[in-house]
């Protein structure tokens, strides 16, 4: 019993360490992007990629009947408006996009947020926001 607990603990620590290493590595901008504008665009682009993937996933899930149209409308309204904010303020989108994302997740019943059709895309937005959220001034 004790050995099993120790093994589980070791596995858990390894998983946490791996995630920490990967997160630390993922936070850096590529070395070929050198200007402040380029670095800002890189971070905003990484978030926009996940926002776009969420939008495509929501459209496909609604078309397949996996999520209802009103839920898809909430998601797609957010993705569209967030893309506008990212495009208009690539250095200052953080608070607006992160706050509105939290509001959107509160509006959608948990059963739909955890629907296999969209959970991966939802998690990807969470991860991207956690990694690339610009610091507030």
């Amino acid at each position, binding site marked *: 019993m004790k050995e099993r607990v120790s093994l*589980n603990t070791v*596995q*858990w620590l390894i*998983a946490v360490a*791996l*995630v920490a290493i*990967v*997160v630390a*590595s*993922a936070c*850096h*901008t*590529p*070395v*070929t*992007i*050198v*200007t402040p*504008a*380029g670095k800002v*665009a*890189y971070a*905003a*682009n*990484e978030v*926009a*990629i996940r*926002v*776009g993937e969420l*939008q*495509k996933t929501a*459209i496909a899930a*609604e078309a397949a009947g996996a999520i209802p*149209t009103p839920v*898809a*409308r909430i998601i*797609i*309204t957010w*993705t*569209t408006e967030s*893309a*506008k904010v*990212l*495009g208009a303020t*690539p250095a200052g989108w953080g608070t607006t996009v992160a706050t509105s994302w939290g509001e959107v997740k509160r509006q959608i019943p948990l059963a739909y947020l955890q629907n296999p059709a969209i*959970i*991966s895309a939802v*998690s*990807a937005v969470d*991860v*991207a926001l956690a*990694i690339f959220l610009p610091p507030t001034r």
Partner: protein
Amino acid sequence: MNPGLIAALINQLLIPELLEIIRRRQAAKLGITDAEIIKEFNNRVLEIVTEGENWLAAHPK
């Protein structure tokens, strides 16, 4: 939450996403420039807005 479930979520959702970010960063090391990333970003934003507005127009409340 069950540690096994947490580990499964990390394995299936978090790590693949983070690896994808690293893969893109490594690919970017091959020579993507500031101008190219800015252009890619602007094109992506336009694509998302266009696709989203078209869907919303086709699915009014």
